[in-house]
């Protein structure tokens, strides 16, 4: 399934249908930027239920999933009151109504759970200062397992640790990927690679599907090797209204409309009736955007070109044979080498 021999390109509809299941632990792979709104919206459309959602810096990702009644539990660190001081957030409204459970970590301790999971560890040490805070002391559904403490065998000190997280599925939007799933991401890295690597299954949507040749020529940007990825979906503007460096800025006006809508449950649901439920895919979403706001508004957030400085990755030679048919190190032709092998008595008849 996650073998690199397979062309994994599919529609987002198929990917979410195959790899996101009711009751799953689902992690939003992106951190603050490049939020995979295309995938969030598809999960909502497919009415996935009883998810435990890991979201490090989510705002509208988690808000929409809650509004879509997809969520039982949330593990988070940061969630702004997008509905304003009075309106609050979906997360707050559902939590105080007892409709969801929320476990709050700090940015680092949340990330450390994913790092432990990515490494295959059952726990990861975190920074002792956290033990003085309510992040450590106040516990929701994780209970005893929210944090643990081990004694360092070398210093004798008590070190707080967090348990590994290995979500069932990670949804992540990246800049570019090849058809096998080799995925490249750059900019502010946050916890993106850890969220992906911790997970059992991974859906990668990408702004651009590219030849493996391009991936091979820039391996330092690859955050996921092919064999970890289950599905590759090409959807440009996949993160809109979030930003993706090198492609498009944040669409602030669009966010303001979402903020205004999010002052109440019904407000956000009404907004989703326009922008989520009736939209089959990102192309339709962008067509709707253009027909409503005009292409000019989309052009205004298009990124300018600012290419990375290249590095030289070359070697002196890529073959052991010189142009004259002789070997580089020995100065002999293949025939001459085989003759030596005979003469030295190395050859066996088989």
């Amino acid at each position: 399934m996650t073998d690199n021999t397979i062309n994994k390109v599919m529609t987002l509809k198929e990917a979410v249908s195959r790899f996101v299941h009711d009751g799953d632990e689902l992690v939003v792979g992106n951190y603050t930027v490049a939020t995979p709104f295309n995938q969030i919206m598809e999960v909502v459309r497919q009415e996935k239920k009883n998810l435990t959602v890991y979201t490090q810096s989510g705002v509208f990702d988690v808000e929409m999933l809650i509004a879509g009644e997809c969520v039982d539990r949330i593990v988070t660190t940061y969630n702004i009151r997008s509905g304003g001081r009075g309106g609050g957030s979906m997360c707050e409204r559902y939590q105080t109504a007892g409709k969801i459970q929320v476990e709050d970590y700090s940015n680092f301790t949340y990330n450390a759970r994913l790092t432990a999971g990515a490494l295959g560890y059952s726990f990861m040490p975190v920074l002792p200062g956290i033990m003085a805070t309510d992040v450590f002391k106040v516990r929701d559904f994780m209970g005893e397992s929210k944090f643990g403490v081990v004694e360092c065998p070398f210093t004798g000190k008590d070190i707080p640790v967090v348990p590994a997280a290995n979500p069932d599925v990670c949804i992540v939007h990246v800049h570019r990927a090849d058809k096998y799933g080799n995925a490249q991401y750059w900019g502010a890295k946050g916890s993106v690679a850890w969220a992906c690597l911790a997970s059992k299954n991974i859906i990668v949507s990408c702004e651009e599907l590219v030849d493996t040749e391009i991936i091979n020529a820039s391996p330092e940007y690859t955050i996921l090797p092919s064999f970890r990825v289950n599905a590759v979906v090409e959807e440009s503007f996949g993160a809109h209204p979030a930003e993706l460096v090198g492609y498009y800025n944040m669409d602030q006006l669009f966010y303001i409309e979402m903020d205004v809508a999010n002052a109440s449950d019904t407000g956000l649901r009404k907004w989703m009736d326009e922008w989520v439920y009736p939209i089959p895919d990102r192309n339709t979403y962008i067509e709707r955007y253009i027909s409503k706001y005009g292409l000019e508004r989309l052009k205004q957030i298009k990124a300018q070109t600012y290419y990375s400085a290249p590095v030289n990755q070359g070697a002196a030679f890529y073959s052991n044979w010189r142009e004259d048919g002789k070997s580089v190190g020995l100065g002999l032709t293949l025939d001459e080498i085989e003759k030596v092998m005979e003469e030295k008595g190395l050859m066996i008849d088989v």
Partner: protein
Amino acid sequence: MSKKVTKIELLVVAVAHTINDGDKVVLGVGAPMLAGALAKALHAPNAVLMMESGMVDFEPLLPPRHVADVMCLKGFPYSTDLFNTFTTITYRGYVDKTILGVGQVDKYGNVNTSFMGGGPTTGMRLTGAGGAPDFMSYAKETILCLKGGKFVEELDYHTSPGYLGGGDERDRSGLFPQGSGPSMLISPDGIFRFDPETKEMYLESVIPGVTVEEVKARVPWDLKTLDPLKEYPVPKKEETDFLRSFAPYASFPNSIMMELAMQHYTQEEQRKAG
């Protein structure tokens, strides 16, 4: 010479003054980022500005909208990740200062940015812990920046560690670098410091037009004040000029900024339609 400045400008400039050239500084969102940009542009060109997303040593060309705003700049030298920012940089002791926003703060500089008016299942959800507790634990020094937050007798939720119960409790706990903790708090009223012995917060200076009584009315404990108060630092013209040019919408409250932005947008739409 008389100058006209807004409260937010006074706050941002006072925060910016805490950054020395060469300081390695972790910035929270909002006013701390404006302060960092101002310092880097004017008096601390070699300050190393960092954010937990892994952006290290950046120079913003636009006000960063959040901690992962790699689009506010054109190039930066070191891109690490969140896990490594907290460990290889922060826990290892390479953060000289962190400048953080505050929801609630108590007299010992302990901070709440998580829940207000109740606990997790009953209160108002603020942004959450984010990077604050781990930065405030391991930065050599913390500058707190209270823009819309509150002084309280007791926090509804203790997100980030100040001096805990005061006195030497922070140092004694063994959980933190010795001598670390909040060194000052800046609010739209004035500047606060912490007593070297008791670690209790006291008022050092007020901004022009604010009285000590007004400040005390917003603080639930019996606030001590420096006698006489120090002068509140007056921004230089180049500082307010920088701020207004760098962040033309940031010198006044969000509500007014939103009003102006909506006005502008509506006019544009009308212009296009007409």
